[in-house]
């Protein structure tokens, strides 16, 4: 007897056995490829790229990727440019420990607000102008270092430069206009990770510039000021490149294109409400403050730490400090990769455990970093700490897209802001106080990281479970559809506004992990008569 076609298990639809582990390309037939569009990469119906070709600069998709991550990279260079030069700056401006610590707090505080505002700016002006405006208007703040003559001036200028870190938002936003949502995780993770590398690159760049300028004849207290002109010019150059070479959308710029009125615009108040009333949002805001946040903190304190504790030369301390930030090249994408890998077998529970393991391991290494007094051991623990913290950042954004479908943008923005808040807080508590040493500060921070990561065990998805509890057995409450559609009122559902959430719910069934029950046969396939 031939198998009855159409019965469960017979449809081999979509099963190839060769699903890529990392979604470098979208092969799913559910994403309709627009073959009429003339782009360098295959695109979907919105002309968003479905493939990610890393070493291409072709307009518009890959060119946007490179313009975007390099702009973000540039703002990291500018924001943390002072950090490796602090041993010189503290002598020039007669700074006390509290001044240095407060400047570090200031450097990451500004962008708490600018990151929240940037989303709206991108909506209004487009990500191209959002990015260009920010980096070209913050270039003067970098040049301002030449005027600084005391602690208060130093703190104010570092605060103003720090606003430019909101390019994180324009970067991620711009990626989402150019790349299909199935590969957006990898694209955004790579862009964010490579942008964060700027925090490492600057530790290498600034001491080298300082030495060169000194050799050219400048006195130390003038040389560091001249060195700041270089990051300032990076800002200007990238701004001009973004304006001349970039475009907001695959088909052109926001102003030039007619806005298509197909998709009903959501209400900001509603989107904010569903973000703020979801307890998971706040847990991740807290957690990101102790993965990304501590990464920013270390960018600010580590060069000075190695210079003072181990009596290294300025450029050597800079090289070691650079290794911390540069680990982002692989560490952050690695965290996203392990998250996806764990999800394949264990679903969302695997992602949560992965995040907890990585972030706690990072915290443990930070604790050890403060305890050791040998240079090789310190470097080792620093690198292990960097991998743990940065992979945790990548792992965090492997989970964030599942917290909410309706409010993803705002939740991402809030989480990003939480990162900066955590950085400001840790610098204030542990590194601005003269009453305990930097090594004690590192140890205490490591303990705090491990404690703060525990709340990830409270994150429970009824449809997937949590670290310690399985998913709900209730047929209705335990479905993905119930979770995502509960963000819409009856009225909104009647207008059909929840359709995208429904689609997302269906696609998210893979977060159950293990053996996935076969999806219902798509309506296009008419079962044959037996």
């Amino acid at each position, binding site marked *: 007897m031939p198998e009855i076609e159409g019965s469960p298990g017979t449809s081999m639809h979509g099963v190839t056995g060769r699903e890529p582990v990392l979604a470098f390309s979208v092969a799913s037939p559910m994403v309709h490829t627009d073959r009429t569009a003339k782009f360098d990469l295959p695109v979907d119906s919105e002309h968003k790229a479905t493939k990610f070709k890393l070493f291409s600069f072709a307009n518009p998709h890959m060119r946007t990727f490179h313009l975007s991550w390099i702009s973000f990279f540039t703002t990291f260079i500018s924001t943390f440019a002072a950090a490796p030069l602090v041993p010189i700056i503290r*002598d*020039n401006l007669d700074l*006390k420990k509290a001044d240095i610590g407060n400047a570090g707090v200031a450097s990451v505080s500004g962008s708490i607000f600018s990151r929240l505002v940037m989303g709206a700016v991108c909506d209004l002006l487009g990500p191209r102008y959002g990015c260009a405006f920010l980096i*070209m208007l913050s270039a003067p703040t970098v*040049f*301002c270092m030449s*005027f600084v003559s005391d602690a208060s001036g130093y703190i104010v200028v570092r605060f103003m430069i720090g606003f430019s870190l909101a390019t994180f938002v324009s970067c991620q936003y711009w990626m989402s206009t150019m790349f299909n949502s199935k590969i957006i995780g990898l694209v955004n993770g790579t862009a964010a990770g490579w942008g964060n590398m700027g925090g490492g690159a600057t530790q290498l760049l600034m001491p080298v510039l300082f030495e060169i300028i000194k050799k050219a004849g400048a006195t130390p*207290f003038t040389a560091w000021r001249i060195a700041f*002109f270089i990051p*300032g010019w990076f800002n200007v150059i990238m701004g001009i490149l973004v304006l001349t070479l970039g475009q907001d959308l695959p088909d052109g710029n926001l102003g030039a294109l007619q806005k298509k009125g197909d998709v009903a615009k959501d209400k900001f108040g509603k989107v904010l409400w569903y973000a703020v009333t979801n307890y998971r949002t706040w847990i991740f805001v807290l957690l990101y403050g102790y993965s990304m946040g501590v990464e920013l903190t270390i960018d600010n304190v580590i060069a000075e730490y190695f210079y003072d504790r181990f009596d290294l030369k300025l450029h050597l301390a800079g090289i070691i400090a650079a290794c911390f930030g540069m680990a982002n090249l692989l560490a952050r994408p690695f965290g996203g990769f392990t998250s996806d890998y764990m999800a394949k077998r264990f679903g969302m529970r695997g992602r949560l455990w992965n995040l907890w393991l990585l972030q706690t391991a990072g915290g443990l290494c930070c604790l050890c970093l403060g305890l050791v007094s040998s240079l090789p051991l310190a470097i080792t623990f620093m690198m292990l700490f960097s991998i743990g913290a940065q992979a945790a950042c990548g792992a965090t954004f492997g989970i964030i897209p599942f917290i909410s479908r309706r409010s993803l943008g705002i939740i991402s923005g809030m989480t990003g802001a939480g990162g900066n808040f955590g950085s400001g807080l840790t610098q204030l508590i542990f590194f601005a106080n003269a009453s305990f040493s930097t090594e004690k500060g590192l140890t205490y921070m490591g303990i705090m990281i491990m404690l703060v990561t525990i709340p990830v065990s409270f994150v429970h998805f009824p449809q997937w479970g949590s670290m310690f509890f399985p998913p709900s057995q209730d047929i209705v409450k335990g479905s993905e559809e119930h979770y995502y559609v509960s963000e819409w009122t009856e009225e909104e559902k009647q207008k059909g506004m929840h359709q995208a959430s429904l689609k997302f719910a269906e696609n998210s069934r893979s977060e159950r992990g293990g053996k996935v029950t076969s999806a219902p046969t798509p309506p296009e396939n008419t079962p044959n008569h037996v």
Partner: protein
Amino acid sequence: MFWEDQITVSWRFNQTYRAGTDSGYKTVKVKLCYAPISQKDRSWRKTEDRLKKDKTCPHKIVARPYTASNNTFTWTVEKDIPSGVYFVRAYALNAHEQEVAYGQTTNVQKDKNLFQIQAITGRHVSLDIASVCFSAFSIVSLAGFFYMEKRKGKSSQ
């Protein structure tokens, strides 16, 4: 207040000690040291008993072979000396480069006979002007670009 840009240091062997105490002294290192007020809240200038870890006297004034008397040196304050309150200390080292004796211009509590140094700012008018020009360029080119694109958008409609 009258500021000078030079310090004249002189040192000699303290005759109240037994003759021959200085037989092992080979070189003298004269250093500029921070007074306690300039060390406060600045752990990178901390005094430690272990000389290798001690950060009190980071600035070298001069190093000379040891002689018991007639030692004088005039030092022009270098441009990377930070503002602060200071004293001068001279270490006598033996043939193995170990500190075996010292003398200083202040007392044990380090609160008498201190002097102040005022650092240069490191600022220059030329830097300030360059800074203003570059900043203006950034703002003007951004505004110009925005304006031009808005005009192109209007004219193409």
